[in-house]
């Protein structure tokens, strides 16, 4: 029988560690899988909460993502475990968005995670630092108000650095649709930030 396991030899110690853990998990070692969970849970939550700004729903989506990863470990075909988990988490986030659409209640609350701010220049003065924080808050609030599709496309493209084709593959739409969502999303952000654009200019 053909061995379908990941045999990719990599020099990256992180990837090597991940592959070892995943292979042990596939052999039934739950602790090895949980080591992967511990390594990546914060990152996946940070990713999903940008797409699903409700923290509870984002948590549920991340939990679902780990369930799905565990269920489909055998389907891993090599490469980066981190990318594989990220894609599963993105799918789980999109499922959560669909669920939200089917059961519309309240719009997403404004993002609460003000704990993270973009890294400020060490020599930045307090005014610049507070301006950066204010800009970050305004942007987060506006991001929570654009459509799920637009937010997903913008987060994946502008923040996470996926290209148009990858996003199209992940979201099952054409590249043209991805571009359109990004452009319309930015236009919507500009509309929502119309009164606060002075924070971003210059």
């Amino acid at each position, binding site marked *: *029988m053909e061995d*379908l396991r990941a045999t990719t030899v990599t020099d990256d110690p992180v990837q090597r560690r991940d592959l070892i853990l995943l292979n042990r998990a596939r052999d039934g070692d*739950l602790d090895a*899988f*949980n080591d992967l*969970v*511990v390594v990546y*849970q*914060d*990152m*996946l*939550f*940070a*990713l999903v*909460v*940008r797409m699903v700004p409700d*923290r509870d729903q984002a*948590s549920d989506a*991340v*939990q679902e993502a*780990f*369930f799905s990863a*565990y*269920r*489909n470990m*055998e*389907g891993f075909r090599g490469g980066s475990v981190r990318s594989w988990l*990220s894609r599963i988490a993105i799918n789980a986030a999109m499922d959560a968005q669909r669920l939200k659409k089917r059961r519309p209640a309240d719009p997403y609350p404004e993002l609460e*995670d003000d*704990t*993270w701010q*973009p*890294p400020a220049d060490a020599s930045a003065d307090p005014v610049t630092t507070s301006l950066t924080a204010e*800009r*970050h808050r305004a*942007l*987060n609030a506006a*991001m929570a108000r654009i459509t799920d599709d637009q937010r997903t496309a*913008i987060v994946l493209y*502008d*923040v*996470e*650095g996926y290209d148009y084709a990858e996003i199209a593959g992940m979201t099952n739409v054409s590249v043209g649709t991805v*571009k*359109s969502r*990004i*452009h*319309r999303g*930015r*236009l919507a*952000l*500009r509309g929502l*930030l119309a009164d606060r*654009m002075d924070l*971003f*200019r210059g």
Partner: protein
Amino acid sequence: MAEQDRGSDDPRLAAVARHALHDEELVAAFAADDVVDPVDLERARSFVDRCAMCRELHDDLRQIRSAVQASGTAAQRAASIAAPRDFRLTAEDAARLRPGSPVARLGARVGWQGRLRLGVAAFGRPLGTGLATLGVAGLLIGSLTLSGGPFALMSGAGAGASSGPPGADQTAAAPEQSERSMTSAPGSTTKDSGGDLVPSTTAGGPGVGALLLGGSFAVLVAGIGLLAASRRIVGPISARRGN
């Protein structure tokens, strides 16, 4: 005074009205360097060059894009944002989520194509032989039926027998119909009932025969295909075992 105010607003209003006709999504695409078509590119450039509001929009969109990009990737944010709960799986979760039996785990490991290959390797030969045999038998019976042999009578009788329930309906309906016809049109009853029954039983022979031939041919082809597929899959495995 009011007229003076209106006069000072007019150029601005005119600019707003002009801008309303401009394609903002094209400007957004231009700001993202996503316009490829030369005609669209020229249009977008002219909007941005000639319309102050388009220019402002273009610059704002670039600023917003930069701000979003600077907002930190998930990996960067993960250094300071802790997940609100522990997502580690419990033993119960694991038992619920993973396929339990070795066969199911093997199935999950090899994917749907592998499962299909395994299925064909295991059941392809007997199933293919059975289907091919059925197909040949069906072809024989079908050809005998069409040529008017003893099977023609059987199929004719079979057609009559197989239409039992409708026939029963007909017989059940017949007395009622004849009662009605006796009062209204006595001559038409015998003609209708006789005319319906005779052609339906005799016409069933060739129809059933052709259907049988077609179906049998399809079954034969499916059986041969399955045998060939099974041979292709099992052959290399046997050869490897032999080596």
